[in-house]
């Protein structure tokens, strides 16, 4: 009789897995683990094994699916317990004929003959269409050059401050975008498509597109450091100066509130 270790060695599978699987197999077959191990070790088949332990799911389910008497080659085989043959070698079944459906159930995972590469073409085409409509088109500035611009003049320190604005996650709570709707009345001049500020997507805190016209540098520094219910940011003096410079320069033409 083969013991667990010799079977495990033969199968190339960890011993505890072989043991666990043998127990499960024995319970399912109404025999003993020793008999199962013996069978796996080359001592013969587990003759009492019921067919339920092996089932094969072949595709077919729809109109052109074959009948269950002529199933397609199986795409998947369920073997209980572990198949003794290590992948990837083609392997004979441990017991029975694992490649023949034995459940009598009709196969349910059914497909139709088609070419998956046509799906690839379709999904790429759809993505390009959505990309053009949903990202590229909206990102092209549309406003004609006119009397007003939303592009603020940023110094070198202001540009560095704008990067810091992103690094610190300010855009998670602040917009720099004024829309021509009632909810935004009083904030500042409406933002045009030539803006170079960070638009943001939530307004949990105040809009900052026109903050340069509303607050002094000292007020900004106090708020950024934790005043007025604002989360405290510990910035070096140089970084604080850059951030405040960016905010002070955030004063597009067209007047304040």
């Amino acid at each position, binding site marked *: 009789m083969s013991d667990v270790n010799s079977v495990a060695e033969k199968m190339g599978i960890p011993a505890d897995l072989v043991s666990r699987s043998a127990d499960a*197999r024995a319970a399912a077959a109404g025999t003993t683990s020793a008999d199962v191990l013996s069978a796996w070790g080359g001592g013969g088949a587990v003759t009492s094994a019921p067919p339920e332990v092996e089932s094969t799911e072949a595709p077919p389910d729809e109109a052109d699916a074959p009948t269950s008497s002529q199933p397609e080659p199986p795409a998947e085989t369920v073997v209980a317990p572990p198949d003794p043959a290590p992948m990837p070698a083609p392997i004979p079944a441990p017991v029975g004929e694992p490649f023949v459906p034995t459940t009598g159930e009709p196969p349910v995972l059914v497909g139709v003959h088609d070419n998956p590469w046509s799906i690839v073409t379709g999904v790429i085409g759809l993505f390009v269409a959505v990309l053009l409509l949903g990202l590229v088109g909206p990102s092209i500035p549309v406003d004609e050059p006119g009397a007003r611009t939303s592009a603020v003049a940023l110094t070198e320190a202001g540009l560095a401050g704008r990067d810091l604005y992103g690094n610190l996650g300010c855009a998670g709570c602040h917009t720099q975008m004024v829309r021509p709707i009632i909810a935004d009345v009083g904030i500042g001049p409406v933002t045009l498509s030539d803006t170079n500020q960070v638009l943001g997507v939530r307004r949990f805190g105040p809009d900052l597109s026109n903050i340069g016209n509303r607050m002094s540098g000292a007020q900004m520094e106090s708020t950024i450091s934790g005043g007025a219910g604002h989360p405290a940011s510990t910035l070096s003096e140089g970084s604080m100066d850059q951030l405040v410079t960016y905010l002070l320069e955030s004063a597009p033409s067209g007047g304040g509130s």
Partner: protein
Amino acid sequence: MATSRSSDIRALLGGGAEEDQVAVSHFLIGAGYLVLGGILALFALLSLRFPDQSPVSFGRIELMSNTALILGFAVTTLTGGIYYALPRLTGARLARVGLARLGLFGLTGLTGLGMLSVAFGYGDGFQPFGIPWWIDIPIALTVFVPALVVFATLANRVEQRSYVTIWFVIGGVVWLPLLYVTSTLASLPFANSLFDAFGGGFLTAGMANLWILTVGMGLFYYSLVKEVGVPLASRQLAAAGFWSLGFAAAWWGAAQFTFGPGPDWVDGVAAAFGLALPIGALANAANYSLTLENSWEKVSEYPGVTSGVIGSYFAVVVGSLAAFGSFPSIASAVSLTSFWEGIEYAALLGLAPMLAAGTVFSAVGRLVGREIPDHQRRVRRFNAMTVVGAGGVLISLVAAGLYSGYSWIGGSNSAAYTDVGEGWAQASGTTVGTLILIAVGFGVVSLLGQFAYAGVVFGTVTTGKSVPQEVLVSRVGDDE
């Protein structure tokens, strides 16, 4: 000792075929990131309610939470689901298993690195991840891995007929890298402000619709039919669901900039095309229900089936709210408010885990040869906490968004807030604060649901009772 450790890990992963071990590895790492993302999401809600008490701002914690939940959990877990289902649907060995393993380790490490970069102030601040471009580029390379593996496998397929899951898998693995690359371009220094903003919205909406919904629902078509043993109700409904989801991809991102500085036509297009989202979700949910028509009484016996079905209807609710918020008349009130935060949290804390569970709970036991311990109770607990938690967060934040949006309008009309731009809180009073606090409470419940999910996955792998294991075998006479 290296060899014994390797052997132990192999045993833990089920000891089956290499591709199945890779799939289980994805499930385990994904479950870990789900819990981490859930914890960060809870902290984000707390920092929204108590901004001055938070050591890190909401703007950064939220980005970290999104990264953990989308890249760490949803991308990783659903990729594992693809590696599980694909060989079983094509009859071919999973190709490039080593590359799949490398992709997992790469994405796992880069996700963690991206989160740390945001935490330490190196992020770029753009939704949904805020990861700087020099980490975005290697991530963009790793998200090509599932496509390479899938196409190499499809090239060797034995089964010539395509089950519907194959479409969704192909769509997901093609769209994921394209989405990531285009959105990374939008965050590069040369991009203008509009491209930055729409790129962030495009990526957020795309990750939810083109990856989480598409792959999650597609894999559930496989798990559902396999578990219950009845044929799919309608291939046509599945096709409608698939293409509608692809079509709906971008619009909840663009809709958040309604009346913004982008072209006016975007507002109308976003509203009209956004309707494709609930239609796609409903087509798939209805298809699942029709498939289960005569099997409802047995549904709770199958791990994951209840989760997947509930998740699909959750998708209908979330998609309907997103379409509702896209109409210009509604968007003028709710854009920029917590209304959209509620939708995004519901997608990440509710939809993604429920749809993932639809496949993972079915697959993990089969792959490792163990039963989910006490599965009916554990799965029921996960379902209940996730639905109540994520649903509660959704309702609270949507209500807070509606209240604050209409307060801005009311304030402007009454001239009571001449400086309404000075603050969301000033315009909305304590009501919104209370609603956010309620959302925090539901966030705790949701987090318990995420722990329950991880408990099912880790519990099955480590302590589940032995059951027959599903092992891939090559057919006699097949070549390698």
